Every structure is written in C-alpha cells, then in structure tokens.
C-alpha cells in the first residue's frame, strides 16, 4: 500500500466519522430540543395552574369573611389578586407565552407538513411578541425584541421550506433558540424574583380562609350531626395540610422558572458551542422535567 492510498483511506474514514458525528449530534440535540419543549410547555401549564390557585385562594378568603358576616360583599370580594393586579396578570401572560414558545419549538422539531410548519412559525412569532409585551407590562421596560430578531426567526423557519430533514430542523432551531435565549433568561429570572419577593402571601390567604372556616365550625357545631361534624373537621384538616406545604410549593414554582431558564440556556449552548457537554443539557432538562412533575403533583393534590 502506498502513501497516497493510506492518506486517501484516512480521508475517507475521517469524512465518514465526521458525517457520523454530525448526524448523531443533530439527532441528539433535536431529541433534547423536543424533550426540553415538552417539559417546558408542561411546566408553564402547571405553573399557570398554580397562579390560578393563588388567585382563587385570595378570593376565597374574602368570600369566607363575607359568609361569616365579618365583611361586606363588594365587587372586590369575588375577584382574586390576579384579576385586579396587572403586574400579576402580566406574569401569567408571560408564562402563557413561554408555554406557547416551547410548544411551537416542539412543533418545529417534529413538524412534517407545510401546515404544521406554518403553524409553528406563526406561534413562534406570536409567543415572542407576547413575551415582549408581557415583560413591558410587568417591568415598564422593553425586553429588546427587535425586528431583526424576529426576522432571524422568520428566516430560520422559512429556510425549512418543504424539506423536513432533521438537518434542516436542526439548523432552524440552532438559529432560533440562541436568539430567544436572552429573552427567556430575562423573563424567567424576573418571574422567579417576583415570586420569591413576597413570601407568605398564598399561605396567608389559605390561613385566613381556614380561620373563617374554623370560627364558623365553632359557631355552628351545636346544631350539627355527628357525621356532619366529622365531614367539617376532615375539611379543616385538609386545609391545614395545604397550609403546611403552601410556602414550599410557591418556592418550587419560582425555582422552576429558573430551571426553565437553565435548560433553555443549556440547549442554546449545546447548539452553539462545539465543546459543550451534552450531559449537562440532559441534566438540565431532567431537572426541568422533575419540576414539571412536582408542580403538577402539587396542583393535583389541591383538587382532592
């Protein structure tokens, strides 16, 4: 075998290995992008349900005060804190936008028809715009979503055309995720900071409702049957259980926003940095999935 043959064989081998590595990386990262998107969308939904629970707890304690004759019925009685506070409502809007963004990203990673790609593209632009407007409402500052950024996203999706090959999807996601990362980092940090800045609000509202129920039981117990008393006492015990985990659950919601930011950042890094360890991305997405499960479990426990 001469030197030319050896060099040629080495070159062919190097190209083959190179193609193999690129193919694996693309498939791995697309797979991770799908997993991120699914977990992030689930987390956004679960967190939004937690916000709804916070809102309901706020109106329920006010209704209990009215029912007990301790306060007058006013229109405010029936509205929760999210209903009347634009800043809290904005947080919910931002979570909706994050969920929509994650779902659209998943759509892009899995779409196999022109209609599905068009929908993903529309949802991506819409969710990014909503992120920007929600952040503006929340902070009074611009998130910095420029026309150029939106053009990057539109161009990336357009480049998919009617080719649904994994490499094409990978290239589109590689353009979009790093562009969106700065916004995701900013809004998630802000959400977490806001949720953590007023600890005890949710717990306080649950406790206030519990106090009203407790006082009502004391006032009415003489007229209750044995089974009715037991049912009321069981209800009071359920309330004390919810009270015991209230602060932990809200803290977990705040941490989940940070986990979402971390996983998105890891996904972005894996797409842009050749030296990035895929294991770090897998860990970050694993944490995100765990948070989504925990918060869903918390929400489900409230419905019992």
């Amino acid at each position: 075998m001469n030197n030319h043959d050896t060099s040629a064989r080495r070159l062919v081998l190097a190209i083959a290995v190179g193609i193999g590595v690129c193919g694996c990386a693309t498939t791995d990262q697309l797979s991770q992008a799908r997993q991120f998107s699914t977990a992030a969308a689930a987390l956004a939904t679960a967190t939004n349900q937690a916000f709804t629970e916070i809102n309901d707890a706020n109106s329920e304690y006010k209704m209990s005060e009215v029912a007990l004759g301790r306060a007058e019925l006013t229109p405010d009685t029936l509205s929760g804190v999210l209903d009347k506070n634009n800043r809290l409502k904005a947080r919910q809007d931002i979570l909706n936008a994050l969920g929509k963004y994650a779902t659209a990203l998943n759509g892009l990673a899995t779409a196999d028809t022109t209609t599905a790609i068009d929908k993903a593209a529309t949802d991506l632009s819409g969710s990014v715009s909503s992120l920007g407007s929600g952040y503006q409402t929340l902070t009074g500052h611009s998130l910095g979503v420029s026309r150029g950024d939106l053009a990057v996203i539109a161009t990336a999706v357009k480049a998919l055309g009617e080719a649904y090959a994994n490499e094409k999807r990978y290239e589109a996601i590689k353009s979009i995720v790093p562009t969106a990362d700065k916004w995701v980092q900013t809004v998630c940090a802000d959400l977490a900071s806001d949720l953590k800045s007023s600890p005890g609000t949710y717990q306080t509202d649950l406790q206030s409702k519990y106090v009203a129920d407790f006082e009502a039981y004391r006032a009415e117990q003489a007229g209750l049957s044995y089974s009715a008393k037991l049912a009321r006492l069981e209800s009071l015990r359920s309330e004390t259980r919810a009270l015991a985990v209230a602060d932990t659950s809200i803290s977990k919601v705040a941490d989940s926003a940070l986990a979402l930011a971390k996983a998105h950042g890891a996904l972005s890094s894996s797409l842009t940095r050749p030296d990035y360890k895929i294991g770090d991305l897998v860990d970050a997405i694993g944490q995100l999935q765990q948070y989504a499960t925990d918060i869903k479990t918390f929400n489900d426990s409230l419905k019992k």
Partner: protein
Amino acid sequence: MNDIVTLLNAIIQAINTLLLNNTDPAVDAKLWKLRNVFTALRDTAMGKIYDKTTGDYVAAQKGLTTAAKAANDAIDGVNAVATAMQPLITAAQAADKVIGLLNLVL
C-alpha cells in the same frame, strides 16, 4: 429589613393565630377589623414597586416589624392581646401612608 408585603403577611398570619386562640368576643371583633385592614393593605401593595429609601417606607417597615413582634409576643403569652393592639394600629397607619389605600383613622 423585609419588604412591606412580607411584613404585612407576617402580621396577618399572627392575627390569624390570635383569632384561632381567642375566645373573647370583644377582642375577636377588634382582631377581625385589624385583619381586614392589613389584608386590604397587603392586597393593594402586592406587585407594586415602592421606593424603599423614603422616610415613610422605612417608618412603615419599623412599625410593621414592631407590630409583628407585639402580636407574636401575645401569641406566646408574653403580653396580653390588648397590648398588641396599639402597635398594630400604628403600623397599619404607617403602612397606609406608603400604600395610600385608606387614609386610616382607627
């Protein structure tokens, strides 16, 4: 020092505990009234941004901290519930000066 909403929550929680422990109807009525005031202040202040360097804000923080301690002392039996009433009223007025909800006259 904690922000106003956190301190208001601490006070509401202390009043709630006092309500659960109390059996005197006259004290009960006063505690309910105070809880309604603090809760209304808390609900209004939530999510708003205040300048934490103003004299009014610092005074509200101090008043709320003192009131929370007085309420917790009453829970622990260190003082009577009646002793906690004036610090709670003073704190509500100081907080309202920042939040601007009620222009409290208690």
